[in-house]
């Protein structure tokens, strides 16, 4: 048996072993419940009291009273009451959830603060703050979902989840803009804020279990963007971060995409061949870690993009019909030597390049595997 064959066998053995010993979700939950019951006596559960705002009580009291004053005084008092009441309402609305009458005040207050923010950086921070609030709401809503929940309840959860993603996209866009305009110190400071808040959001929405996948994907995306910026600036000499820590972050991204590929195969979102295709990029990323972190991350990004495209395409890796008349005409003209023969028939194009299925491709892959495995 050659060394290459042995390594291949060991990998297959390992995969088989891990598949057979995978802990199920039920077991994980039961396991944690047991651990929690044992460690509970070591910590106090802090009950958060819901504080009733002084201003809410004041507003309620004033509203209940009849005022018999002169017109000017009355007008002034009404104005004061209006300002106080607005503040009280917004304050009281802070902990509300969609469906509560005060929720709209909360959203309106957030939008006002966002619009009044004086810089893109402030708006990015506002978006982060809003995303965190939506994350708290998301978890609270999910915890209320049960078999008696209506479609409206589910729609509300989806709405909040979409809001989180929208704000995260806003953060991503603003950070990318900052990267092109601001100095390294500001970019680094913003990167730290984003990373910390992404950890908080992950921690919060993870309580919701599988329902938070879209949000978590968006969080991962932002973290990749931030990491790519930091790595780029580090390699350009603009930053003086710990290379070891950056390397660790890149390696974590590689491990993550590797896990996602395995998961996608396990859930039959992609087949083994497609997984192999994506894994090429992952392996290349691994090799590049020691040479160039930015190139390694680029490979990770390619792998993620490929995984996304393949898993989400309706007809997975078989054939897709491309209807691009202009391009088609050009192609046909070129082939026919500009004889003016055109066709408007749709072109059937394989989403998996025919070259991939050929023997030559297989041989090429084997050589790449051999080259890589020598390095392990």
């Amino acid at each position, binding site marked *: 048996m050659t060394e290459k064959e042995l390594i291949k066998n060991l990998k297959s*053995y390992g995969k088989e072993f*891990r598949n057979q010993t995978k802990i199920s979700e039920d077991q994980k939950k039961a396991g944690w419940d047991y651990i929690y019951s044992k460690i509970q006596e070591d910590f106090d559960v802090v009950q958060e009291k819901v504080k009733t705002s002084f201003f809410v009580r004041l507003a309620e009291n004033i509203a209940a009273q009849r005022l018999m004053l002169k017109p000017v005084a009355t007008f002034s008092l009404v104005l004061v009451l209006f300002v106080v009441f607005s503040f009280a309402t917004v304050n009281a609305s802070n902990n509300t959830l969609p469906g509560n009458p005060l929720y709209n005040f909360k959203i309106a207050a957030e939008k006002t603060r966002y619009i009044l923010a004086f810089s893109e950086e402030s708006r990015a921070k506002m978006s982060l703050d809003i995303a965190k609030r939506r994350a708290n709401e998301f978890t609270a809503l999910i915890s209320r979902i049960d078999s008696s929940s209506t479609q409206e309840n589910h729609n509300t959860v989806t709405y909040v989840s979409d809001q989180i993603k929208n704000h995260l996209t806003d953060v991503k866009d603003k950070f990318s803009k900052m990267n092109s305009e601001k100095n390294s110190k500001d970019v680094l400071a913003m990167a730290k804020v984003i990373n910390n808040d992404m*950890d908080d959001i992950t921690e919060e929405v993870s309580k919701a279990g599988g329902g938070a996948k879209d949000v978590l994907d968006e969080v991962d995306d932002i973290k990749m963007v931030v990491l790519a910026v930091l790595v780029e600036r580090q390699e350009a000499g603009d930053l003086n971060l710990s290379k070891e820590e950056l390397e660790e972050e890149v*390696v974590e991204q590689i491990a993550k995409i590797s896990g996602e590929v395995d998961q996608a195969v396990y859930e039959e979102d992609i087949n083994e061949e497609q997984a192999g295709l994506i894994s090429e990029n992952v392996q290349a990323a691994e090799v590049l870690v020691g040479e160039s972190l930015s190139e390694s991350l680029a490979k990770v990004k390619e792998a993620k993009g490929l995984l996304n495209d393949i898993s989400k395409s309706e007809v997975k890796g078989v054939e897709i019909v491309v209807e691009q008349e202009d391009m088609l005409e050009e192609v046909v003209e070129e082939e026919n030597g500009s004889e003016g023969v055109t066709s408007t028939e749709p072109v059937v194009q394989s989403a998996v390049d025919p070259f991939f299925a050929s023997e030559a491709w297989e041989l090429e892959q084997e050589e790449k595997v051999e080259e890589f495995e020598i390095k*392990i």
Partner: protein
Amino acid sequence: MTKMKEKKLVDKVRRKKDPEAFKILYDTFQQKVYHKIVRRVPSTEEAEDLKQEVFLKLWNYIISNDREIEYLSALIYKIAQNLIAEYYVNQGLVKTFKDKDKIDLDEVAWKIEDKKENIEYAVNLKMEFRELKINLDKLEPEEYRQVIELRFLEELSHREISEILDKPEGSVRVLLHRAIKKLQSIMDI
């Protein structure tokens, strides 16, 4: 999980006894710990029990100890190793065990005698892998087998293996290469 994140979580557990932070650690490491244990005990139930015990010990260690934990995965592995060793002693599978009643997590020094005793693994392997497993069990010295198992069965990175074995990463790569060569020679006999 990066070291920064690990330290942050350990700190939260230590200072605030935060169960949510500990849950993240539990979720991150439990599968790997289980992989380590299930290969060494006769049943999945016992493996599950030992796994849970690992994390209870980890919790107690973190909240009662101010010492900085440089390599959390290495600590968790040491705890698991100690518990497996205790298990062997309790089952009468080993004759002697140093400081059995007082396991010092800071100085793991245990030896298992007769480690090749017939402990049936809980995993029902396909026939094609049984020969590989038999030959892997024969592999000497022990660190060759260990490094192959850590790399291929538990799928740890070179960095993680270097933390567990307390060797530089480069040495781990060389060790792995030698281990594979040795295994290859055993299988070709």
